[in-house]
C-alpha cells in the first residue's frame, strides 16, 4: 500500500499540515504536496475510473501526462471538472471528487463493462448502434452519454475572475528545466527581451530529482544560481505556474498562468491568459516517459518509473513497499537507486535488453539488487491493485518463468521528447532509430514572415539525453534565438557535468514480443480511453491504416490528455501491424493546447457587463428610463417600441405607427451611418460607389442611393446630401456604417489610390432625430430659427443653421411616407433636443416610436429594408429599384456583374406585396409554394416572404415577398407555407400600399 515515508520529500513542508477532502472523506497532506501525492500518501492508490470499461485506475504519472487521476476540484461556483491531481497543488480545505464512477470509486456498477470487454472492441459503438436508426437519438445516445463522459459540468456561474495579458518579447522560452534556464541565461545575457515560463511551481525540472552534478555542485545549487542571475537581469521575466499552451503563426503564443489555484484565499484573478508575440520561441519542454505494453499494465500500482521516483524524492511518498522495475533502458535504474535510498525493497529489475552493463545497472547491482536481463513481464497479478508479476522471456510468447510478489511496478519504455509546441505551427519531426524517438527536424521548422524558423527546440525536447548535451544544446538555442533578434553574446563556457553514462535503449513495443491475443487484449495503450494493443491491431486489420483514422476509430490519444502517454506506443503497434516503419506511419497532428486551459482564461474579462460592448446613443438614458423594449441592431440596442403599462411590445408598436400617421412621432435615428466624402474627385468616386449618379446632385439637395458589391448584390442604401462643391454626406444603414466606410476606403486605397478623395466616419459625432407625421413641421417651427416651410425646404432638401438653441442640420427626407424631417445636432446636444421636442410637442400628440414602428411604416409604404429584402443574393433589379440605377454611367461597382445572364434573367424572383385572403399575418421567411416536389421530396417553391407585419393602418397582415416573375403576376393568388403545416392563400399586389401618389410626404 502506498504511504508517506518517514523522511524525505524535497518539496513538502512536513512541519505544517493541510486538511482536504476527497469523495467526502477527510485527509491531511503537507504544503508542497500535489493532490495526487497527498492521496497517495494517504493510501489512496485508486484515483479514477477509466472511460469505457470503468476499470479502477491509479496514478501512472506525476505531471501533466497523467491519464487517470482526473478529478473535480472545488465546490459550487468554484467547481471545475477534469483537473489533474498530479498538477493540482494542495491547499487548505481543498475539496476533490473522483469522476466517471457510480455509485462510488471503490464499487462501480459500470465496471461490468470490463468483464464484457471482449464484446466492446474498437468500433463497437459504430457497429452496434446503427440499427434501428431512430434508436440512436432517443435510446442509445442518452444511455451512452449517461454512462460515459468524464467530469460533470459545473452547475453554477464561475465565481472567479480571469484576465488576459499581452506580452511582446524577443525570445519566449517555454520550460524552466535546466534546458530552459540555460537558454534563458544565454538569451538574457545578450540583452534580448526574454520571457521564461514554467508550468509547475518549481524550477529545474527533472534534474532536481535525477541529480546530476553541474558546475561542481548539485543540480539544485546550479538552478539556484541560474535563477539568481536571471532575476538580476532587467530584460528577463520569469513566470512559474505558467504553462505554454500553443504556438501559432507569426510568433504568436498562448500561455496560461495559474495565480490562485494553489492559494484560493489570495484573491485577484484566478488565471491569466498570456497572449505573447515573440520574435523567436525556444521550446525546452522536456520529455515524457513511455509506458510498456504488458498484460494488465493498467492495474493501480503500475506506474512510470520516473513518476515513482518523483513521488519518493519530491514528496516522500512510496507507491508500495516492494516495487518490481521493468525497463528497456538505463534511466529506470535511477528509480531502483532512489527506492533503495529510501529503504524500500526492489525485488528485481527486469530489463528487456539482452545485457545491461552500463554505469547505472552496475550501481544497482552493487546495491545488491537482482537484475534480470532479457526478461519482461508476462502479466501483472491483482484485481484492484498489484499483488505480483509473472516474469517471462522478452523474446518469447509469455510462458511464465517465475512469479514474484510485489505491490508496485515501475515501468519505463524510454522517453519521448515533448515536441508539441514545436509541431503546433508546422514544425516537422524525424524518427531517430538509435534513440527510438521522434525529434524536431531542424531543417523543417515552423517558419515566420521572414521565411526563417521561429521555433528552436532545446534540451531533452530536442532529443538530447545526457545533461551535458542538454545544456550545450540549450545554450546554443538560446544564443541563436537572441541572435535572430539582433542580439549577440559571447559564448559562455559549458559547466562541468558529472553523471553516469547511459547505454542505448532497446525499443520494446510489445512485452513479450510474441504475446498472443489473450495477452494483447489486456495490454493498455491509452488508459484514459481504454484502448488496448488488440484494438489498434483490429483497426489496422479493418483498414484504418492512416494513423489519423486509427486514432478516431479506436479513440487512441483523444480526450483530455491527447495521448501524451499513448501516441508513440500506439503508432508503433500500428506500424508493426501494417509492416511499415514508424516514420512512414507518422504521428497524429499535435494541436494546441498542450494541456487544457480554462474557459475562464479564454474569456478573460469578457463576462457580465463586459461580455460584449453595447453601443449607446446620446438618448439611450432616456430610452432606458422610459421603458423601451430593446432589440439588438449590430452592437447597438435600439428601442423596438416603448410599451406603456402592461401593453405588449407589439401593441406599443401599433400605437406608435398610428400616432405617427395621424399626429407626430419621433425616432432616435442616431445610429444611422454618416460618412463624409470630400475632394476634387469625390463626385466621380460616389458615382462608382452608388448605382445612381451623385455627382450631379445640387448643393442643398438629397438623393436616395444604392450601394452594391462588385458582384452586383445590393449591400446598403441611404440618403446622400451634397454639403458643398466637393463635399457629400452619405447616410448608411445602422449596420452598414463601419462596413461601408471600410468599403469606400478599400476602393480608395487599393484601386483608386490616385483619386483625390478623403472620407471620415462621423456617425457618432451626431445625434439624429426623425420628426415624423402631419405635425412635424409645426413642432420644429416652435423651436424657432431655420425656415422649414415647404418653399424654403422642399422634399429631399436640407438646411443648416440655428434651430432654437441648437446648431442643426435638417434633412427633409421620409422613410415613413409622412411629412418628415431628420434633425442632426452634435451628439452631446442630442438628449436636450430630444427632451425639448417631446416637451414642446406634447399638445401636438408627439410620441416616440421604435424600430418596429419604423419597419411597419416603411413596409406599408413599400420601402425596402437592407437585411430584410436583401440577403446577399438580391440585386436592386430584383426589388424594382431600376429607377435608382443609372443607365448612362459608364461604370459603377456591380454594374458588370448585374449584366451577367443569370442576373439579367427575367425568371428571377422579384419584389411584390402579398395580401392574405383571411387578413392574417404571414410567417417570417415563409415560402410561396409551387407544384410538385424536388429530388429530395421537398415541396417546390416559387418565392419567399421577406417582410411581414400586421399593419395597424390597414388592420390586416401585409407582406413583401420575392416571387418568380412577381411584378408580372399582380392580382394572382398564391399559396404561402405556414409554420406547423398547411398554407394560406395570398393575393399578389403592388408592394406600395400606402399613399401611392406620395402626397402625404408634403404634409
Amino acid at each position, binding site marked *: 500500500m502506498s504511504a508517506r515515508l518517514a523522511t524525505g520529500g524535497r518539496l513538502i513542508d512536513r512541519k505544517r499540515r493541510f486538511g482536504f477532502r476527497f469523495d467526502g472523506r477527510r485527509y491531511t497532506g503537507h504544503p508542497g504536496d500535489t493532490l495526487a501525492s497527498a492521496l497517495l500518501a494517504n493510501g489512496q492508490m485508486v484515483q479514477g475510473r477509466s472511460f469505457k470499461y470503468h476499470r479502477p485506475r491509479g496514478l501512472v504519472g506525476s505531471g501533466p501526462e497523467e491519464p487517470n487521476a482526473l478529478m473535480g476540484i472545488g465546490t459550487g461556483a468554484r467547481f471545475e471538472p477534469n483537473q489533474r491531481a498530479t498538477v493540482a497543488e494542495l491547499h487548505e480545505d481543498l475539496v476533490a471528487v473522483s469522476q466517471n464512477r457510480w455509485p462510488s470509486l471503490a464499487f462501480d456498477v459500470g465496471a461490468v463493462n470490463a468483464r464484457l470487454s471482449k464484446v466492446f472492441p474498437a468500433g463497437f459503438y459504430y457497429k452496434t448502434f446503427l440499427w434501428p436508426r431512430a434508436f440512436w437519438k432517443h435510446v442509445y445516445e442518452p444511455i451512452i452519454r449517461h454512462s460515459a463522459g468524464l467530469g460533470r459540468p459545473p452547475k453554477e456561474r464561475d465565481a472567479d475572475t480571469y484576465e488576459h*495579458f499581452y506580452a511582446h518579447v524577443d525570445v519566449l522560452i517555454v520550460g524552466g528545466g535546466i534546458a530552459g534556464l540555460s537558454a534563458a541565461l544565454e538569451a538574457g545575457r545578450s540583452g534580448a527581451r526574454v520571457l521564461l515560463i514554467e508550468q509547475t511551481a518549481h524550477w529545474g525540472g527533472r534534474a532536481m530529482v535525477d541529480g546530476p552534478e553541474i558546475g561542481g555542485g548539485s543540480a539544485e545549487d546550479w538552478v539556484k544560481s541560474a535563477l539568481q542571475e536571471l532575476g538580476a537581469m532587467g530584460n528577463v521575466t520569469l513566470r512559474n505556474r505558467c504553462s505554454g499552451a500553443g504556438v501559432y503563426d507569426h510568433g504568436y503564443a498562448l500561455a496560461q498562468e495559474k495565480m490562485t489555484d494553489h492559494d484560493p484565499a489570495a484573491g485577484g484573478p484566478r488565471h491569466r491568459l498570456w497572449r505573447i508575440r515573440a520574435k523567436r520561441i525556444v521550446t525546452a519542454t522536456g520529455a515524457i516517459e513511455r509506458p510498456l505494453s504488458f498484460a494488465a499494465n493498467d492495474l493501480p500500482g503500475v506506474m512510470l518509473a520516473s513518476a515513482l521516483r518523483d513521488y519518493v524524492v519530491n514528496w516522500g511518498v512510496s507507491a508500495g513497499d516492494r516495487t518490481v522495475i521493468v525497463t528497456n533502458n538505463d534511466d529506470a535504474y535511477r528509480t531502483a537507486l532512489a527506492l533503495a535510498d529510501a529503504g524500500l525493497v526492489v525485488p528485481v529489475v527486469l530489463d528487456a535488453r539482452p545485457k545491461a552493463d552500463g554505469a547505472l545497472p552496475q550501481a544497482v547491482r552493487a546495491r545488491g539488487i537482482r537484475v534480470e536481463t532479457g526478461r519482461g513481464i508476462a502479466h501483472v497479478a491483482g484485481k484492484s491493485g498489484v499483488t505480483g508479476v509473472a516474469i517471462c522471456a522478452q523474446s518469447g510468447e509469455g510462458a511464465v518463468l517465475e512469479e514474484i510478489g510485489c505491490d508496485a511496478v515501475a515501468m519505463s519504455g524510454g522517453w519521448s521528447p515533448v515536441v508539441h509546441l514545436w509541431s503546433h505551427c508546422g514544425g516537422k519531426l524525424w524518427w531517430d532509430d538509435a534513440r527510438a524517438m521522434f525529434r524536431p527536424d531542424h531543417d523543417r521548422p515552423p517558419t515566420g514572415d521572414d521565411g526563417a524558423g521561429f521555433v528552436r527546440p532545446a534540451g531533452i525536447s530536442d532529443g538530447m539525453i545526457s545533461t551535458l548535451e542538454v545544456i550545450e544544446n540549450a545554450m546554443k538555442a538560446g544564443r541563436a534565438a537572441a541572435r535572430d533578434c539582433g542580439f549577440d553574446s559571447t559564448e559562455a563556457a559549458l559547466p562541468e557535468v558529472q553523471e553516469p553514462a547511459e547505454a542505448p535503449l532497446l525499443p520494446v513495443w510489445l512485452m513479450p514480443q510474441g504475446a498472443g491475443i489473450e495477452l494483447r487484449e489486456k495490454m493498455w495503450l491509452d488508459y484514459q480511453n481504454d484502448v488496448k494493443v488488440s484494438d489498434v491491431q483490429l483497426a489496422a486489420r479493418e483498414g484504418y491504416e492512416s494513423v489519423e483514422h486509427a486514432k478516431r476509430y479506436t479513440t487512441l490519444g483523444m480526450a483530455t490528455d491527447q495521448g501524451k502517454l499513448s501516441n508513440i506506443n500506439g503508432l508503433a503497434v500500428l506500424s508493426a501491424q501494417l509492416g511499415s516503419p514508424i516514420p512512414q506511419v507518422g504521428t497524429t497532428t499535435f494541436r494546441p493546447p498542450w494541456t487544457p486551459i480554462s474557459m475562464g482564461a479564454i474569456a478573460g474579462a469578457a463576462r457580465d457587463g463586459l461580455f460584449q460592448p*453595447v453601443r449607446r446613443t446620446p438618448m439611450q438614458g432616456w430610452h432606458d428610463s422610459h421603458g423601451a423594449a430593446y432589440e439588438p441592431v449590430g*452592437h447597438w440596442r435600439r428601442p423596438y417600441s416603448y410599451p406603456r403599462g402592461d401593453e405588449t411590445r407589439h401593441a406599443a408598436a401599433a400605437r406608435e405607427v398610428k400616432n405617427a400617421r395621424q399626429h407626430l412621432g419621433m425616432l432616435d435615428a442616431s445610429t444611422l451611418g454618416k460618412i463624409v466624402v470630400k475632394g476634387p474627385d469625390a463626385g466621380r468616386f460616389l458615382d462608382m460607389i452608388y448605382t445612381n449618379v451623385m455627382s450631379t446632385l445640387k448643393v442643398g439637395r438629397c438623393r436616395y442611393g444604392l450601394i452594391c458589391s462588385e458582384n452586383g448584390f445590393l449591400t446598403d442604401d441611404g440618403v446622400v446630401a451634397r454639403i458643398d462643391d466637393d463635399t457629400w454626406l452619405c447616410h448608411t444603414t445602422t449596420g452598414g456604417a463601419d462596413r461601408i466606410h471600410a468599403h469606400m476606403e478599400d476602393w480608395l486605397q487599393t484601386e483608386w489610390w490616385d483619386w483625390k478623395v478623403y472620407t471620415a466616419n462621423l456617425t*457618432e459625432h451626431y445625434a439624429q432625430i426623425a420628426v415624423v407625421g402631419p405635425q412635424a413641421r409645426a413642432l420644429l417651427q416652435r423651436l424657432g430659427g431655420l425656415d422649414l416651410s415647404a418653399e424654403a425646404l422642399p422634399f429631399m432638401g436640407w438646411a443648416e443653421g440655428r434651430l432654437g438653441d441648437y446648431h442643426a442640420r435638417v434633412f427633409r427626407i421620409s422613410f415613413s411616407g409622412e411629412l418628415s424631417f431628420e434633425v442632426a445636432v*452634435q451628439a452631446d446636444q442630442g438628449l436636450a433636443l430630444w427632451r425639448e421636442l417631446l416637451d414642446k410637442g406634447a399638445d401636438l400628440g408627439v410620441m416616440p416610436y421604435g424600430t418596429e414602428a419604423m419597419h411597419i411604416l416603411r413596409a406599408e409604404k413599400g420601402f425596402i429594408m437592407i437585411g430584410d429584402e436583401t440577403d446577399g443574393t438580391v440585386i436592386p433589379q430584383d426589388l424594382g429599384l431600376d429607377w435608382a440605377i443609372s443607365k448612362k454611367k459608364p461604370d459603377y461597382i456591380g454594374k458588370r456583374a448585374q449584366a451577367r445572364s443569370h442576373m439579367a434573367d427575367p425568371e428571377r424572383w422579384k419584389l411584390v406585396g402579398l395580401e392574405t385572403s383571411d387578413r392574417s399575418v404571414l410567417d417570417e421567411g415563409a415560402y410561396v409554394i409551387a407544384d410538385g416536389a424536388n429530388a429530395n421530396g421537398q415541396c417546390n417553391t416559387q418565392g419567399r416572404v421577406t417582410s411581414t407585419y400586421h399593419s395597424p393602418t390597414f388592420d390586416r397582415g401585409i407582406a413583401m415577398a420575392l416571387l418568380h416573375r412577381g411584378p408580372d403576376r399582380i392580382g394572382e393568388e398564391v399559396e404561402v407555407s405556414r409554420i406547423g403545416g398547411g398554407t394560406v392563400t395570398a393575393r399578389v399586389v403592388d408592394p406600395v400600399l400606402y399613399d401611392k401618389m406620395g402626397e402625404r410626404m408634403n404634409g
Partner: protein
Amino acid sequence: MAELKITQAGPTGMITLRGDLSDQGLQELCTGLTGTGFPDRLGAETGDDTGLFWMSPDELLLLLPQDRVAEALRRIAEALEGQHHLAADVSGARALFTVEGAWVRELLAKLTPADLHPASLGTGQIRRSHLGQVAAAFWLPREGVARIICFRSVADYMRELLEVSSRAGPVGHF
C-alpha cells in the same frame, strides 16, 4: 496593490484632419493651432490642453478646448483653401479617459495587442489599436499617465473595462 485613478474628461474639442502631412503650410497651421510640435510617424505631441497626433500617413487628430473648435475649423478652411484636405469636427464622436498610476502600462497591456513596453511605446507616441473589444487610441503624455480615446457610444463599456482590469491588480511584467 497600488490603485489606479480612472477619470473621464468632460467635453473636449477634437478635429480630424486628413491631408498631405508633409506640407509645410499644413504643419505650421496645425502647430499654430495646438502650440505643440508636429508629430512624427506614430507621434503624440501634447500641450497643456491641446494635442497633435499622427493617426495615419494622411491623418492627424487635433485636441483643443471645445470652444476653440469652430474657429480652428475656420482657420483650417482658410489656410488650406484650394488644397485637397478634409477637416471634420469629431468632438461629439469621442470619449476621453485618463488613467494615472504606477502600473498604467500593464493595465493597457491587459487590453490591447499593442506592445506597451517602454522601448516600443515611449512617451510622446500614440497607438491606434483596440482595448478589449472596442477601437481605441492611447498615449502616455508622461510615465504613469495614459490617455485613451474611444467612441462615445462605448464610453460606458470602456469605463467598466478599465475599472474591472484595474481592480484585478498589476501583473509585474514591466
